């Protein structure tokens, strides 16, 4: 069974054609590094988000790889150019079948 968690996207819902828009994506995730031990000395297995991708009308415009050094509840801020009206899809993939997807619509005038 796949795991998921709360994620959230902040971006403008409309923009002028050619404008640079800022997108913020944040996910609720423990980002367990795989280097920590429990109080009884057992290794806690790694459980992190591995990749984040943003596609704009099915074209990939941004991708990030995640590593164990990244803290819990990661926030990504990036920019892209508003080219056409349509749909942005954000996908988080991680260990243990973790998957979370967000969608946001933008109107470009």
């Amino acid at each position, binding site marked *: 069974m796949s795991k998921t968690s*709360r994620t*959230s996207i*902040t971006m403008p819902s409309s923009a002028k054609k050619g404008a640079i828009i800022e997108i*913020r994506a*944040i996910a*609720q995730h*423990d*980002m367990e590094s795989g280097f920590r031990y429990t109080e009884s000395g057992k290794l806690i297995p790694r459980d992190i988000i591995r990749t984040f991708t943003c596609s704009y009308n099915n074209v990939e415009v941004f991708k990030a790889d995640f590593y164990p050094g990244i*803290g*819990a*509840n990661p*926030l990504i801020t990036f920019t892209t150019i508003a080219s056409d009206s349509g749909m942005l899809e954000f996908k988080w993939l991680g260990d243990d079948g973790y998957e979370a997807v967000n969608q946001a619509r933008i109107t470009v005038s």
Partner: protein
Amino acid sequence: MAAPADLSGKKQSSYELMSAENKAMQDDPTLNPAMFWVAEGESLWQAKSGTKNIACSQCHSDLKKSMRGVATQYPKMIKGKLQTLEGQINQCRIGAQGAPALAYESKELLSLTALIALQSKGMPIAVNESPQNKEELKKGQQWFNKRLGQLNLSCAQCHEDRAGLKLGGSPIPQGHPNAYPIYRLEWQTLGSLQRRLRNCMSGVRAQQFEYGSPEMAQLELFLMWRARGMPLEAPGVRP
């Protein structure tokens, strides 16, 4: 009560000691990771639970009205017992819902506390001395001034006498509980005031008060009384 807890000068939230980035993280709900717990709290608020199969929302109806200002009054005396906000949430679960109490620092209890505290954001802390809480408040003050642990330090020695100075490069705050539950970057998660207090106790190598103990409630009461009038920032972000 006597004067010692009256800080000379102005009460200062430790928000003022934070970097611009951390301040922005607290102020902007799209950046504040604690909002995930608030969202979780909203679904718990609506969820039916316990043997009586009833949700928080069925008794308390509109959250924004019924819980407005509630967090500014805790800990308070309820039926002769000093009750913290977390304690009262659990009291509701056991009594009204017929559900088991939630563990301290569990995601569920933190989520509900964060949701309720958020309804009082910006409102002044309204814990005052009353004939009912007088005894408990006095005990809380005694804990605050009592030297504890192998380092033999009291809360007051750092957070009163040395507030504004530095400890290992970090500023010593006045120690006001005006933003709890907080998202502490060091913890990488949301945590309660009691967790923070236990942090300090382990720092001075003292035996920590238990979660939900009467001593914790007394100390919480004194701290809230000491911070009375300060606006609540919950859920806050701290480094």
